[in-house]
């Protein structure tokens, strides 16, 4: 399968708002489109889908050119091999779940169907809902059916527009694992629009940051989250995501050891056991990281890791700074006071010890 990537040079002009982006996105994995409401994320997604008729420019997805205004090429939505999950499911009210699922599938030539009905049903756990009408489903169930329906068109690109936004916490927690499973088991590139940092942290491989219709930055998630100059980092909840591998499990204390990308150090966190060698993502909040010039002994903090200071930059708060570090291959952020920076005399290149008070395993 062609994975050359997504080339999106798009422009949309509405009264009072315009979108103007020039992006190269990976042709596989989950790319998150992150930004506040009004930043243009949904506009971009609709433009990629061909639903915004005012969109101009150039768009090619893994070798397929869907839009080329200069040459007069505009592939209509129904001929683009994409799947779209709307914010509120939008199931057809006059069809039961099974017929909703089959709607798209029927319209894809048999030779191109790669996703099977029971596969999608299993993946999203909706087997017991097939005879029901959409009106008889809960919000979470509707979203899962919507996702399965989009998948069943065997799309080359899956577009998801804040699929969890209209759900409550409990439903969100219920569906996120399905999304992660989707990501892990199907090889379909996903564009995922969201303004929720946690979803982005759990799912994204690549992140595009949008503001006012422009792309501020685009890059792999770990790098993006660790950049102190981006608004992401200025959030109180600024976190980094570290991609590590499971190194071992202490059953007596239920401590899971996760090896950092560099291969030397491990982070240990209380968690259920996971098979060794399995990839594991963890999130570390900047405010949970403190720094010391020498390793502290006899401390309750379990994770004390050698790191190298890369940069010191202003934080959102005038009396704080953000220190970006490289800890055995994992980019980390630490939020400390200006006072401490001056006391410790922190400067790029210095070797320090990062004390990580809390680590959360993402999956």
């Amino acid at each position, binding site marked *: 399968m062609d994975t050359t990537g997504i080339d999106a040079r798009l422009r949309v002009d509405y009264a009072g708002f315009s979108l103007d982006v020039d992006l190269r996105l990976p042709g596989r994995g989950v790319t998150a489109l992150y930004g506040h409401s009004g930043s243009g994320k949904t506009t971009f997604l609709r433009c990629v*889908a061909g*639903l915004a008729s005012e969109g101009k420019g150039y768009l090619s997805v893994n070798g397929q050119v869907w839009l080329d205004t200069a040459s007069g090429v505009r592939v209509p939505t*129904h*001929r683009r091999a994409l*799947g*779209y999950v709307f914010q509120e499911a939008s199931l057809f*009210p006059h069809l039961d779940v099974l017929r909703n699922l089959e709607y*798209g599938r029927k319209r894809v030539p048999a030779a191109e169907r790669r996703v099977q009905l029971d596969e999608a049903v299993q993946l999203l756990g909706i087997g017991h809902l097939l005879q029901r009408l959409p009106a008889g489903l809960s919000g979470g169930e509707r979203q899962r059916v919507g996702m399965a329906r*989009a998948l069943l068109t065997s799309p080359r690109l899956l577009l998801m527009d804040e699929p969890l936004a209209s759900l409550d916490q409990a439903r969100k927690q219920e569906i996120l694992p399905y999304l992660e499973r989707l990501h892990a088991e199907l090889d379909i590139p996903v564009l995922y629009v969201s303004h929720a940092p946690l979803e982005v942290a759990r799912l994204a491989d690549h992140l595009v940051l949008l503001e006012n219709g422009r792309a501020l930055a685009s890059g792999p998630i770990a790098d993006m989250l660790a950049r102190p100059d981006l608004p992401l980092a200025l959030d109180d909840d600024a976190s980094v995501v570290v991609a590590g591998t499971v190194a071992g499990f202490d059953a007596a204390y239920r401590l899971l050891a996760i090896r950092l990308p560099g291969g030397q150090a491990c982070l240990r966190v209380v968690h259920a056991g996971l098979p060794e060698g399995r990839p594991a993502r963890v999130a570390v909040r900047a405010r949970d990281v403190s720094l010391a010039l020498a390793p502290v002994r006899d401390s309750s903090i379990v994770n004390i890791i050698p790191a190298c200071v890369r940069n010191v930059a202003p934080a959102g708060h005038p009396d704080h700074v953000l220190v970006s570090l490289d800890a055995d291959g994992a980019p980390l952020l630490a939020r400390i006071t200006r006072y401490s920076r001056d006391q410790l005399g922190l400067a790029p290149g210095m070797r320090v010890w990062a004390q990580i008070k809390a680590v959360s395993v993402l999956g």
Partner: protein
Amino acid sequence: MHLDSSDFAAIWLTLQLATLTTLLLLLIGTPVAWWLSRTRSRWKGPIGAVVALPLVLPPTVLGFYLLVAMGPQGPVGQLTQALGLGVLPFTFAGLVVGSVIYSLPFVVQPLQNAFESIGVRPLEAAATLRASPWDCFFTVVLPLARPGFVTAAILGFAHTVGEFGVVLMIGGNIEGRTRVVSVQIYDHVEALEYAQAHWLAGGMVVFSFVVLLLLYTRRRAAPLW
């Protein structure tokens, strides 16, 4: 019962007229209503107003202009004569044309409302699921607009049955061809045949009530028009 063969002929003629008119209106009205519900062109207002004209024009005005236009000197009349069809006044076909114009808004407006209330999201969803615009129209729009079609058909039919002014102007009162029930009642009154007038008029009241009852009890069950 005091009804005679000419009364039954009038009833049968009226039913034929109403049925044919309703079918034609559903055929013509659907694309018009669809266009009106989707378009953002600046012609939407004027065309919507033209469609709604028969709602406010006195039927005799409509009938009068039809008489002139369809007559041998009028534009429509000249066209029909050139096509070898003669002229339309005094013919059943002429009544059908008049009825289609007269009942147009009663069919187009419910359809337009039904299409509008579907919104744009189901159409977008269908497109993302590989349905072409025609496919989408038949598999998503029509089923969702079905209550609107029922309303349009019922209103169009009932309205044509009740038509009087237009028929009066262009019909010529020919039994079996243009003498519909409403005119037949009028004739009975003119000729002082009150018993027959009562039977026919009473029958029409009952018919109209039943039709409207059907329409209104259905409405509660199907909120989408």
